[in-house]
């Protein structure tokens, strides 16, 4: 039994690493279609990674070991996060090791390393990007915490697997606070993953970049790892969203059969496809915000999450009664 659990954990992580670039490629494809362009194939992100892994890395003369290790730290933290998030099943050995608050800490660690590495070379763009990234980050984190507190209030736990189990055991309860939290979560997801309207992953204009400005000095395998970690981060955020708001299909405690896992994989792929299309739609119909509107955007996310909490406290009692 124990061996099976670990096999499931391992399988989940491998699946996450394997399909994260696919998710990013799917969003790019949907974006292209929505703009009436012919789309790159779904395998484009994999081809890009392959190309980068086959190149020789160029390092700046002033690069310290921090600069070289940061991509590995980044990739490592995102893989660890993928192990904690119950994307397929809730009975995971790693999931017990950390709750959702620790998860936010894990993302913060990755951010700190990325920003330090960006400043390490001493170019003005790296520092510019790091500064903006920290600004977005410190505004997004409280909003994300508030979103999680919503779920905690509902199910009384800060561990994502317990949340999913709790949700699955009371499927009839649809709390209005969840809707506020879900909207806030999508806003945080956009900001944290360098998507329009906060950042533009497709831009070539150095002065407008946030996330990309930090990567300008990276090449080859380092860049590949960072790109892969970025797509994993987006995948992880999507899976947190599914665990919090759309947990249907995830194999919960006790449902250990192969059929439950098959259902979980199918459900995940369907949910990713729909979420990717929805993200692409949001990105295509919005313009990028002026950078000093980003705090307003994230303050709005925070406010919505707090509203969710208030709604729960005011109405939640009667729903549960």
């Amino acid at each position, binding site marked *: 039994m124990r061996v099976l659990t670990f096999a499931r954990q391992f399988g989940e992580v491998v699946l996450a690493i394997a399909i994260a670039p696919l998710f990013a490629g799917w969003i790019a494809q949907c974006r292209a279609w929505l703009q009436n362009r012919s789309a790159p194939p779904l395998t484009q992100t994999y081809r890009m990674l392959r190309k980068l892994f086959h190149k020789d890395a160029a390092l700046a003369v002033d690069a310290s070991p921090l600069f070289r290790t940061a991509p590995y730290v980044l990739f490592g933290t995102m893989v660890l996060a993928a192990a904690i998030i119950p994307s397929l099943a809730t009975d995971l050995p790693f999931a017990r090791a950390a709750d959702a608050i620790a998860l936010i800490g894990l993302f913060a660690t990755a951010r700190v390393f990325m920003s330090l590495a960006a400043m390490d070379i001493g170019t003005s763009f790296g520092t510019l990007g790091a500064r903006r990234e920290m600004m977005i980050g410190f505004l997004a984190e409280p909003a994300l915490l508030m979103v999680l507190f919503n779920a905690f209030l509902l199910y009384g736990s800060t561990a994502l697997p317990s949340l999913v189990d709790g949700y699955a055991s009371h499927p009839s309860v649809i709390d209005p606070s969840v809707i506020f939290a879900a909207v806030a979560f999508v806003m945080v997801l956009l900001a944290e993953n360098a998507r329009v309207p906060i950042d533009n992953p497709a831009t070539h204009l150095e002065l407008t970049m946030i996330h990309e400005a930090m990567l300008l000095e990276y090449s080859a395998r380092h860049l590949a790892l960072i790109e892969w970690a970025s797509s994993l981060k987006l995948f992880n955020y999507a899976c947190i969203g599914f665990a919090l708001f759309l947990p249907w299909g995830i194999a919960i405690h006790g449902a250990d059969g192969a059929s439950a896992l098959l259902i979980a994989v199918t459900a995940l792929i369907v949910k990713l496809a729909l979420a990717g299309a929805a993200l692409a739609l949001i990105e295509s119909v919005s313009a990028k*915000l002026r*950078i000093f509107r980003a705090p307003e955007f994230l303050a709005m996310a925070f406010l919505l999450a707090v509203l969710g909490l208030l709604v729960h406290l005011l109405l939640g009692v009667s729903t549960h009664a």
Partner: protein
Amino acid sequence: MMMEFDRFDPPPAKFPGNVPAIRVQANADHWFAAAEALHAAHAHFLSLWGADDRDRDNCFRIYGAWLLPDRVVVIENALRDVANPHYASLAPLFPAASRMQRAVYDLLGISTEEPDMRRWLRHDGWPESVFPLRRAFDGNQQYPVTSEPYPFVQVEGDGVHEIPVGPVHAGTIEPGHFRFSVVGEKVLRLEERLGYTHKGVGKRFQAMPQAEGHWLAARLCGDSAVAFSWAWCAALESITDTLCPPRAIALRALALEHERMANHLGDLGALGNDAGFAFGLTQFSRLKEDLLRTGAALFGERYLMNFILPGGVARDLPAHASALLSAQYLKLEESVAGLRSIYDEHAGVQDRFRETGRLDHAPAEQLGALGLVARASGIQCDLRVNMPWPPYDGLQVQPALQTSGDVAARAQVRFDEVFASLRLCRALLADLSAGPVHAAVPIAEPGSMGIGLIEGWRGPVLIVLEAGPEGSIRNCHAHDPSWQNWPLLEYAIIGNLVPDFPLINKSFNLSYSGQDG
């Protein structure tokens, strides 16, 4: 309008050109007084250039050109002290003259008392004591590259730091260096350094026969090929008294309006993209591409670098052109109107466009804005309206005018001009007379000077041509309105946010190659 220089001796002479122009021979004493009179009359400063005439009458010459509402004035200043040629700086009256004076020094060694005489075009390619536009200079001479520091103006204060950008950029664009002094995300000062694409076209023109000059003129600035080649041909035709057939003139205007529309469509798409609205880029790029392909099918090339020749145009339109163009104009008008309402009603796009990169009327006037940028700041200046040359004299061009001077205004001027150009193209097609499209051009008399001034999509494009013996070119000065408008960009960015710079820059969309020469 009676001006002070109308009383000069010798009196102003007519300057041959496609627009009404006069040439005033001022000596060193009258040079600055004439400029002051023009400044008092609110003339638009157009260009400043020099010539080495020591082989002919032992002097250097400096020329200034201005735009009055009804005519162009060229002031000429012969500098007799050939050992140390010097003239009074125009920068106190016309700030736009400053960089042109620096360029004149780099090329000819004619100095002025301007405090900022850092080199402008000389990018370590030749030593300070060498002046490439002097007649004795051999264009094939190679010099070792010596790197000298170029001091930028420093801004001091708590938390002020610099962001150097370029000359090599992340996108495929031309080279230019931008030095931002910023506090946080706010820009305190921007200083440009251009001249990286200086190719020495002034010198190259002097080695070309008159019959080939249009070829180089069309290649000065790729997006203004029609405007520059028409200006060149207009200058040559006016000194040789060539009359172009009416059909050729109409076809030139059709080509110029196509060039204007193609550039405006491209810019409108890029403006959307720089605001993070990629949908706009794909839609406008498609419209621009359709227009270019129609151009390739009808005029023979996508960018019309070989279309306009002295005496007319290179080829006539095919028989089916009129029907094909009418159908395309209809589709284009419909699409642009639809996209305009999307831009106008998109809150995110409008939030980025409005109040961004604001250039008010007063500073635009004071700093000498020209062309599209000036029209977005409420300055009524369009040569097609003010001094229409054929065929615009029969077309009643409606000027596009906005007053807010921000990115939104520059986008609106582009939209308005696309619709105005569509109207002009339809009128030109409807009245297209039959007949030849080319006339023979005789050789110009040595020493004769002519001016060609064409309202390109960016603004007035100037060519001043001086003929040499036996069909050669003695001097040719080409001027792009970017000279005037680049310093305005430095002004418009002040107080804006660093990430808004690409958007503001795109709304100006100035030329590097056309200005570096």
